[in-house]
């Protein structure tokens, strides 16, 4: 079978898998960013309880494997009465895992906003919340954007694991096709190229664009 | 290196008084910026030549080319009669290969503005590295030679310290010992006192005075210490705009500079002091 014939026959499934992968990536990203912001800020909170919760969360999710977390959420959580449908379990696991990494990024970026900015906001008598939202966070976002670029590629790669709980993403589709055709180079090779294209020609340029847009917004372009 | 016609350059320098270092029509440029413009400069064996001039005049480039840290765009540099930047093949000169460079480069030693000691080696290990691994001396011989040189620069007590534990002046003295341990015929000093606190400059210049007095070394020194250059040099070259604007004995150049630019430069330097 030529490669073109292969694509003709299995292109639909590969395409639908790709769409599922993209959808998973988008949903996990939204979740990861939300978790990262909340836990990152909690890590900087003066309240020791909030700080402690965030630290435990981050250490657990960074200290164990995404695959372990995925299996745990999918197979064990139902025993506690929380049953997630496999697609949901998939993007929740990926989002929670990468959110823990993102939290450290958020924390680092906030801490690296120059001290003078905190003092200036204080001098203007801003409330702590207002200071964070109006002054510190916009500058921190710019600092952490390059880190998020790498993290989102890690996240995209992480979504491939949900195939192991039978979510029909790109990884799952090519694994199935390989199981019936044994055309491993064609199936897995195609998937590798698709992941690469998404990472290199979609995520990376998007993050660059976002960085430039943020710089313009902050008047630094 | 650009292809150039080298037919006018001899395969080696011969005769009674072959200079130790000879720059012949040497040109260096970065893109369209010409740093050195057809430089001719001979340094005799045992001669001490100081190079002065405003920043950007190309004076440091002269030393860096001689140490082969920069390639040249035109001309030929000879060391001890043999071409450095080129090598003879048949009856003509071709750009030097790395073996040729290594052979000729062995005659040259250099000290840097920022010392550039190896931070993970002690003072003694810094000095022994080259003799053991390049010259093939036994550890014992290299150690004796290095200890002797460290004694000469007054660093015997600190020989087992890492550079991070040494002051700038001490580091520079170790760097001089390290360069001398390779037994070069030519020593290059590139602004070796510029990164030092004023109160320790003397300990480095004293070591250089000692080298001049006790060794028959050929030396090229780029410096901002006009007084020191005047004391110790056989000849001083004033660089301006990539060329030698004026050169002569220290007395002549510092006492009676002929060119207007030299006069301006020297009076500006004096005012700064």
């Amino acid at each position, binding site marked *: 079978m030529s490669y073109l014939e292969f694509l003709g026959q299995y292109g639909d499934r590969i395409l639908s898998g790709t769409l599922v992968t993209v959808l998973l990536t988008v949903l996990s990203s939204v979740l990861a960013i939300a978790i990262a912001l909340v836990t990152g800020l909690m890590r900087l909170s003066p309240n020791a309880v909030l700080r402690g919760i965030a630290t435990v969360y981050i250490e*657990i999710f960074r*200290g*164990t*494997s*995404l*695959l*372990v*977390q995925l*299996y*745990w959420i999918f*197979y*064990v959580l139902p*025993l*506690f009465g929380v049953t997630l449908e496999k697609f949901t379990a998939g993007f929740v696991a990926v989002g929670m895992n990468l959110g823990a990494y993102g939290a450290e990024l958020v924390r680092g970026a906030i801490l690296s906003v120059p001290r003078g900015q905190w003092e200036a906001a204080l001098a203007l008598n801003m409330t702590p919340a207002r200071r964070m939202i109006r002054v510190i966070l916009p500058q921190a976002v710019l600092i952490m954007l390059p880190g998020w670029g790498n993290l989102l*590629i890690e996240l*995209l*790669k992480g*979504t*491939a*694991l949900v195939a*192991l709980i039978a979510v029909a993403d790109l*990884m799952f589709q*090519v694994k199935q096709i*390989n199981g019936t055709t*044994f*055309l*491993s*180079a064609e199936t*897995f*090779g195609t*998937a*590798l190229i698709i*992941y*690469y294209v998404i990472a*290199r020609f979609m995520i990376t340029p998007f993050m660059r664009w976002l960085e430039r847009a943020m710089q313009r917004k902050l008047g630094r372009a | 290196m650009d292809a150039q016609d080298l037919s006018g350059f001899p395969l080696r320098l011969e005769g009674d008084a072959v200079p130790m270092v000879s720059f012949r029509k040497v040109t260096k440029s970065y893109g369209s910026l010409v740093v050195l413009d057809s430089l001719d400069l001979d340094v005799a064996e045992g001669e001490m030549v100081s190079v002065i001039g405003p920043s950007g005049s190309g004076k440091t480039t002269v030393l860096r080319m001689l*140490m082969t*840290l920069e390639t040249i765009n035109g001309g030929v540099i000879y060391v001890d009669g043999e071409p450095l930047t080129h090598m003879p093949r048949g009856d003509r000169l071709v750009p030097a290969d790395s073996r040729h460079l*290594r052979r000729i*480069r*062995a005659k*040259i030693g*250099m000290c*840097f503005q920022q010392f*550039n*000691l*190896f*931070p*993970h*080696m*002690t003072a003694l290990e810094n000095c022994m*590295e*080259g003799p053991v*691994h*390049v010259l093939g001396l036994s550890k014992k011989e290299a150690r004796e030679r290095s200890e002797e040189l460290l004694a000469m620069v007054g660093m015997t007590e600190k020989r087992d310290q*890492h*550079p*991070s*534990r040494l002051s700038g002046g001490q580091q520079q003295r170790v760097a001089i010992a390290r*360069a001398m341990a*390779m037994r070069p015929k030519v020593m290059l000093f590139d602004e070796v006192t510029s990164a030092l606190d004023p109160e320790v400059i003397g300990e480095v210049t004293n070591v250089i005075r000692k080298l001049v007095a006790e060794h028959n070394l050929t030396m090229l020194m780029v410096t901002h210490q006009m007084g020191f250059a005047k004391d110790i040099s056989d000849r001083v070259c004033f660089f301006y705009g990539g060329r030698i604007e004026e050169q002569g004995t220290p007395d002549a150049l510092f006492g009676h500079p002929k060119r207007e630019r030299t006069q301006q430069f020297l009076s500006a330097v004096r005012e700064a002091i």
Partner: protein
Amino acid sequence: MFDWRWDFTWDILPRLIAATGNTLLAAGLGYAIAVVLGLALALAQRTPSRALTLVVREAIEFIRSTPLVLQIFFVFYVGPQFGLRLSPWTAGMIAIGLHYAAYLSEVYRGGLDSVPKGQWEAATSLNLSTSRTYFRVILPQALPPSLAGMGNYLVGIFKDTPMLSVIGVAELMHTANAIGSETYRFLEPFTLVGIIFLALSLPTAAGIRLFEAWVRRKLGMV
């Protein structure tokens, strides 16, 4: 806790601990490959050949932007298609070693770039050969700034070993899965796997920070 059964826990613990040995072995072997191959990839980008640099850079980008689990499948299944059979261990070590070599080469690259230019110049002025310059002068200085990154990826490779279970390497996750499908109990095996990973990766991360400080002192670079 809920339905946790301690007798079952004690039953399966020895099996999981034995499998932990395999997990550590896989992480260690994969890391050894990655450390050496990563250095080769970093040095290959420093030759005068622009073409080689470009090809290596692009290959590293490719490996870094595609999922490890897919690479493991690829290495394991593509061989037989062309008559080359690899055992799960061999295929797994090649895939994970190569994957982390790409990451480590970036760490080394940063370390190498952080060595001041003057160190190269001093080596030239002492007439040291290129290989001596690398091994005696540059690499020892590139090491301390690389250690933090190297340590992160050591923990990273350890945490990625569960992916080897997909081609049947009998490490922790594979064993927990097997226990789960034999007994239909997932709570204890999967939770224990999580605990074992935590118990190993947190102290390792702390140990690496201590080691880093020790190396800096050892090299006299404090």
